[in-house]
């Protein structure tokens, strides 16, 4: 393995700072790199076929200039940032790109990619149904199946039950290790800062699963043993919302006398709470992604066929995993962050805040435009929020 000079947290930081470095090396060694957007494309299939999955993010420090050519300014800036980087040739190391219809604008990336970016020879758009209904799971299994058939062409090999099983086990191992990583923030003060944690999460999304797993093992050991620990702070916060792949917000919050100890974001825990269940077949993957991953993009109810709706029961069925995290990590405040123009998360805000109110957990809602520069005005609000908690 090529990158042996650096290890543990400092390796995570290195990859965080230069995400494509390792996959470029792997590509030079003959590996094929498959970029994927959002956390719904089943990475297990990519891994099982000997390809390297690479999660595509935007870049919050890069001003969006080229994307105006292909998108309007009134859509999700995360999506615009990805398009912008694509148009600037920054994804030239990808052999394939897989998108998912997890939200309308996100799905559009693949269409724009085909229209304007054209960088990767292979593109696939996975339709993801909107509900967790049983027919929807079967439909999604069919979608995964046609994705499998398509990407087998790129890989030049067929997916076998055995390869898929092995890949599922490796990714499940990663899920387990990530949960252990998050456990390191249960003590007060936490053993790991939220910015360090994010660097690890971003690094994982930029590495082959086996390298990610050994990185996680190293880091868990390193953190458990290290002498210098984060200092105590006044409050313990949970951060909720869509994609957040930059340490700026976490640094900002932690500079305001608060620790972020856990999150419900799609770069953080969302993809890691649940394991893919045996038997490790396509149906299990459909069930895992569509039903077990809890993202507001999927419509769910307290129970199917319910002829009466109870608001509080409804909220509890949708958000009780957040309640559990609040209890387990000793959280005393929640920061709801969202990217401007995100409909799927936006509609959730008043209801989630109401739910937190009923739990007696104060919350604050902040909106940003997925740029480092939009963090500055948020600072005062986060500080004042922390002051109200004190």
């Amino acid at each position, binding site marked *: 393995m090529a990158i042996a000079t650096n290890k543990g947290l400092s390796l995570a930081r290195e990859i965080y700072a230069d995400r494509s470095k390792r996959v470029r090396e792997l590509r030079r060694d003959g590996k094929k790199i498959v970029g994927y957007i959002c956390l719904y494309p089943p990475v297990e299939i990519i891994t099982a076929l000997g390809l390297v999955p690479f999660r595509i993010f935007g870049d919050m420090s890069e001003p969006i200039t080229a994307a105006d050519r292909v998108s309007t300014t009134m859509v999700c800036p995360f999506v615009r940032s990805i398009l912008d980087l694509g148009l600037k040739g920054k994804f030239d190391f990808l052999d394939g790109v897989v998108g998912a219809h997890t939200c309308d*604008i996100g799905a559009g990336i693949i269409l724009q990619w085909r229209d304007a970016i054209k960088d990767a020879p292979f593109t696939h758009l996975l339709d993801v149904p909107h509900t967790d209904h049983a027919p929807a799971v079967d439909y999604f299994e*069919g979608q995964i199946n046609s994705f499998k058939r398509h990407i087998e062409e790129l890989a030049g090999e067929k997916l076998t039950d055995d390869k898929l099983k092995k890949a599922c086990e490796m990714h499940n191992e990663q899920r387990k290790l990530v949960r252990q990583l998050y456990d390191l923030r249960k003590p007060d003060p936490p053993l790991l800062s939220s910015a360090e944690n994010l660097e690890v999460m971003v690094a994982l999304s930029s590495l082959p699963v086996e390298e990610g797993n050994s990185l996680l093992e190293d880091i868990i050991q390193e953190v458990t043993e290290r002498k210098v620990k984060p200092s105590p702070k006044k409050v313990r916060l949970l951060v909720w919302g869509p994609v957040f792949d930059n340490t700026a917000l976490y640094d900002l919050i932690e500079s305001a006398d608060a620790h972020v100890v856990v999150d419900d974001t799609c770069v953080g825990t969302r993809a890691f709470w649940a394991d893919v269940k045996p038997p490790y077949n396509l149906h299990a993957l459909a069930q895992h992604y569509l039903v077990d991953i809890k993202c507001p993009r999927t419509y769910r109810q307290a129970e199917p066929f319910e002829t009466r709706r109870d608001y509080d029961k409804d909220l509890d069925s949708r958000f009780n995993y957040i309640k559990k995290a609040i209890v387990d990590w000793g959280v005393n405040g929640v920061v709801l962050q969202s990217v401007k123009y995100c409909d799927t998360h936006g509609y959730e805000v008043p209801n989630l*805040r109401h739910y937190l109110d009923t739990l007696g957990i104060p919350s604050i809602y902040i909106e940003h435009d997925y740029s480092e520069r939009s963090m500055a005005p948020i600072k005062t609000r986060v500080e004042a929020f922390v002051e109200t908690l004190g």
Partner: protein
Amino acid sequence: MSDSVAPAKTEQKRAINRLKSMYPLRNLVAQDYINTLQASNEGKPTVWAMLNYWEGDLPLKAMGLNIVYPENYSTLMASSGTAEPFLDASDSDGFPTHMCGYGRSTIGYSFRMMKQNDGKIPPEAPMGGMAKPTLLLGSGIICDARFKWFQALSRYFDAPEWCLEMPMMGTFEGTEPDLEEYQVKFLVRELRDFIAFLEKLLGKKMDWAKLEELIEVGIKIHETCWQIHELRKVSPCPMHSTDFWSSMPPALFFAGDMYEALKCYQDMLTEVQERVKNKVAAINYPEKYRIVFAELPPWHSLKFFDNLAEMGWNFVYESYGYHNPRPPDLSKVSDPVEKLARLSRNFVFNVHPYAKADGIENPIVETYLRIAKGWKADGLFLHPLISCRAASAGLRSVQDQLQKRLDVPTLWVEGDIIDKRVFNPQETLARAEAFEQTMEHYRKVRKSRGLDW
């Protein structure tokens, strides 16, 4: 018969030559609001539904339910200038301000009704208001707001909700030949579950005969509408976009009595055929430019199209999402649920037939290329919206590709469906004058390339 182009002097009050057959169709929507209020007063169930491209409309109608469409209601709020306080109400209940304008205005309506007015209709509501729902029907077609917004309404109503499924729009992943049957199977299962749910909710059985009959009427309505809009390919175009928008609900979501709607559309077809025969234009001025409008119109400023008509701008086609495609031949399908599944699926895959052959892999782009060619557009009027992501996101690609492939230029005017403050009609008119030069230029370029318009 060049004299017949010139309209009689008395009709020259309005620059747009409205179709007489449009008015009864427009009134059918009003009837739904009245019926639903009455039903609610009598304690009968009422439904708030999202546009669902007939999947839900027809089973609900077959079960005798009264339906209103909040999306349509917000356009009424916008066009009657009453939307602003409702938007403010949504903001004040903590919903982010950047979201769908339709969603925000009806969330605001629900908030006013349930949290500020004792469950009664707010007095400022236009058209007498929407009665409190006993069922909410969300939909997964076209945009995320369609189900998230309805889910968010649980904040105000204890009404149960169902979210209807639909595969996403035409992409090669969805149009491989063997996928059609798999998609139909998915929709059939979903619809059977939905009908079972309705039966459980209402405590009565589906009237299958009625459902089949309504599907047949619906297919006839769609066939008639399709014929009407094909006739708009002639020059001068006999029907203006404003007439389409005013008359679309009985085809788009089967507003009003469907039998009556069919009769009205047949009258409209006759009137349009007459106009074509007599070369009567949809505007009372010579048709200088044929314009295609995309996407959602500025409901609050429709009078603006009269000003453009005075300049000889005829709007010949519009808003693909509001048009039904020609219905498929379903005569060999016996199961009504399957018929319905195929009819609805046809919207997604026939408004957007996947056209890899042209080297275009973007269904919306493909759609507008087809429209621009078919309806011989001199220009595209693009109206990206502040508060609608789904309708705005792909418009840059549409603009680019139309220019590149067909030399059809675009007038880009930012605005909104609801919020009239962001739309400047006067400035737009000044720009339209400049755009005429652009259209003239590209007319020559198209000729030189051998294109026929």
